[in-house]
C-alpha cells in the first residue's frame, strides 16, 4: 500500500470550529473567490464592530471596585463553564479537607472579603490556578504527586496570594486598553503548552490571568507571601521548596511538559533559588507541621483515580508510581493490583506480560469475586492461543459480571474458545 497520501488523513478526534477555520484558512490561497468572499465578510465584521461600542470601556476610568466587579463577573462565567464541563473531581470529603487547609491559611491573610473555595479538576497534569474571586482549581495530577499537607498548604498559599494581592486587577490596571489586556493574558497562558488547550477551551483568557505566570514580579510576590502565610499557619516552610523540587524531578523523570503551577523554565529556577534564600535567611530553624499521614489517608482514592487518568493518556511510568504509592498503604486492595497489572499489560514491554499475570493473580487471590482480572487473564491467554485457559477465565468473568460493558466481546471470544475446543 502507498502511504504517501496519508498525511492528508491524519487522525483527529473531534471536528470543531477551530479546525474548520484552520482548514479554511489553509485553503484560501487555492480558492481565490472564497478568499475575496471571506475578505469582504471580514471587512463587514470590522465595520460592524467599529460601529458598536465595546460592552465595557477600560478608558472610562472605572474605579478599582468596578473593575474588580467586572473581573469577578467574568470569573464566575468561566467557573460555570468549568463546573459544567464534567471535568470536576467529585469527592466532598476531600474538598472539605482542602478547604480546611485553605481556611487555616486565610486566617493569616489581610483579605477577609475574599471567600476561598477550593475545587478539584479531574486531570493528570500538574496544574493549579486561581480566579480573582478566590475560587482555586487544583488538578488531580498535582495533588497525587504531593507528599504531605504542608506541600498542599504551599501551593494553596501561593494561589491564594494571587487573589489577596489582586494580581489580576493589577495586570488589568497596568494595561491601557482591554484588547491589550486580553492579548497579554492570552500570551501568558500560551507560554504553558500543557495548559493551553484547557485554558483556551474554558475561555480562560479574559478575567483571570489566573494561573502562575502573570509576571516574574507577581510570581515572586506570591512565592514570598505564600511562604510567610504557610509559616504563620504553622506549616513547615521548607516543604514549599520540597514541593518545587519534587515536581521538577517528576517532570524530568516523566518527560512531561512543564506545569502551570511552576511556570516556565528560567523563572522556575529563579523561584527555587529565591525560596532557598528566604528559607536560609528568614526561616532558619523554623520547623512546623508536615502532616503526612492525614494527607495521604485523605488522598488515597485520588492517587488511584489519577493513576487511571495517567494510564488513559499512556503515561505508564507515572501511573505505575502512583499505584505503587497507593499499594504501599493499601496492601490488600485487589483493584489496585489489577490496575497495576493493566499498566504492565498495556505498556507491553519485555517481561511486562509476566508481571501483569502475577498482579492479576494477586488481585484474584485477594478478591475472587472481582471480575476485571478474570477478563484480563482471559484476554492474555486468548491472544497466546491458550484457549482452554482463556475459556475458564472468560466464563468466570461472565458469571461474576453478567452485564459487563464488554460482554459482547467476551461472549464472542468465549464462543471461539469453545469452538476451537470442539474442533480439537
Amino acid at each position, binding site marked *: 500500500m502507498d502511504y504517501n497520501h496519508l498525511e492528508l488523513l491524519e487522525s483527529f478526534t473531534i471536528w470543531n470550529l477551530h479546525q474548520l477555520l484552520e482548514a479554511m484558512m489553509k485553503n484560501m490561497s487555492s480558492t481565490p473567490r472564497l478568499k475575496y468572499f471571506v475578505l469582504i465578510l471580514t471587512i*463587514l465584521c470590522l465595520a460592524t464592530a467599529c460601529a458598536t461600542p465595546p460592552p465595557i470601556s477600560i478608558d472610562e476610568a472605572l474605579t478599582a471596585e468596578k473593575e474588580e466587579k467586572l473581573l469577578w463577573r467574568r470569573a464566575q462565567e468561566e467557573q460555570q463553564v468549568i463546573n459544567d464541563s464534567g471535568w470536576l473531581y467529585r469527592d466532598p470529603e476531600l474538598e472539605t479537607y482542602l478547604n480546611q487547609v485553605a481556611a487555616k491559611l486565610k486566617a493569616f491573610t489581610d483579605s477577609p472579603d475574599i471567600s476561598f473555595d477550593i475545587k478539584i479538576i479531574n486531570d493528570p497534569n500538574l496544574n493549579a490556578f486561581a480566579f480573582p474571586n478566590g475560587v482555586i482549581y487544583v488538578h488531580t495530577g498535582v495533588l497525587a504527586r504531593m507528599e504531605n499537607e504542608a506541600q498542599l498548604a504551599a501551593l494553596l498559599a501561593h494561589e491564594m496570594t494571587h487573589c489577596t494581592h489582586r494580581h489580576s486587577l493589577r495586570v488589568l490596571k497596568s494595561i491601557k486598553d482591554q484588547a491589550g489586556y486580553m492579548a497579554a493574558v492570552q500570551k501568558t497562558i500560551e507560554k504553558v503548552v500543557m495548559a493551553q488547550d484547557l485554558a483556551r477551551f474554558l475561555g480562560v483568557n479574559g478575567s483571570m490571568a489566573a494561573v502562575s505566570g502573570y509576571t516574574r514580579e507577581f510570581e515572586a510576590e506570591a512565592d514570598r507571601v505564600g511562604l510567610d502565610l504557610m509559616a504563620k499557619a504553622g506549616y513547615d516552610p521548607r516543604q514549599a521548596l520540597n514541593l518545587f523540587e519534587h515536581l521538577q524531578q517528576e517532570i524530568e523523570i516523566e518527560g512531561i511538559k512543564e506545569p502551570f503551577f511552576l511556570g516556565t523554565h528560567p523563572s522556575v529556577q529563579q523561584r527555587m533559588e529565591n525560596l532557598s534564600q528566604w528559607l536560609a535567611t528568614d526561616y532558619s530553624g523554623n520547623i512546623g507541621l508536615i502532616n503526612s499521614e492525614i494527607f495521604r489517608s485523605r488522598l488515597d482514592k485520588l492517587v488511584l483515580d489519577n493513576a487511571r487518568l495517567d494510564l488513559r493518556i499512556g503515561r505508564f511510568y507515572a501511573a505505575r508510581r502512583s499505584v505503587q504509592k497507593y499499594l504501599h498503604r493499601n496492601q490488600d486492595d485487589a483493584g489496585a493490583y489489577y490496575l497495576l497489572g493493566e499498566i504492565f499489560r498495556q505498556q507491553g514491554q519485555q517481561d511486562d506480560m509476566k508481571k501483569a499475570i502475577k498482579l492479576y493473580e494477586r488481585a484474584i487471590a485477594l478478591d475472587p469475586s472481582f471480575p476485571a482480572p478474570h477478563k484480563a487473564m482471559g484476554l492474555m491467554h486468548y491472544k497466546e492461543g491458550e484457549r482452554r485457559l482463556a475459556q475458564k477465565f472468560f466464563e468466570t468473568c461472565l458469571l461474576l459480571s453478567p452485564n459487563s460493558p464488554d460482554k459482547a*466481546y467476551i461472549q464472542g471470544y468465549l464462543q471461539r474458545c469453545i469452538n476451537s475446543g470442539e474442533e480439537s
Partner: protein
Amino acid sequence: MKKLLLLLISLGLIFGCAAAADKRSLKDLPKSDFSVEIPAGWWKPQYVNKYLITKDGPFLQYVLIQQRPIDRPFKNTKKKLRKRMLPLESARIIIDEIASDRNITNFKAVENTPAIIDGHAGFKILFTYKDKKGSMFKTLYYGFISNNTFFNLRYNAAIRQYYDKDIADFKKILSSFKLVEG
C-alpha cells in the same frame, strides 16, 4: 462610503454563494486504499483535506473515513495500536484517545461492541459529547486493523434533529466499504 461597502458586500455574497454552490460535489476526495458508495446529497467541503463528507455542513453532520499507519502517535494518548491487538483492545485505545480530548466535555461511551467491517473483525463505539458551546453531538465510530493500517469510519451529528436523520445513509456507506487491493 456606505454605498461602496454595500456594493462590495453584495458582490462578495454573490461570488461567495456561486463559489459555494460550485463546490458541493464529491471531487477532490483524497486517494485512499478503500472504496465506498456515497448516497446522493453528500458533498465534500473543499477546505477539508480529508475523506470527509456532509449533507448540511460539517457542524451539523459528517461522515469521516480515515486510514492511518498503526504506529502513528495519537494526539491525546501516548498509547499505540498494535498489529495483533484484539478489537476490544483497540476500541479501548480509541475511547481513551477521545475521552482525553480537551476540545470536548461530558464525553460518554454509550456502547462498545464487536463489529465486522468488510469481513474484518473490528469494533463499534457509540459515544456522546458536548462542544464548548454546550451543543451535544453523537458519534458512531467503526474501526479495524488490517495489516499495519488502522481504518475507521465515523458518523458524527448534532443529536438534535440531525443524528437520526442521516444514520441510514451512513449505514449504507458502511456496508459498501471495501478495501482495495494495493
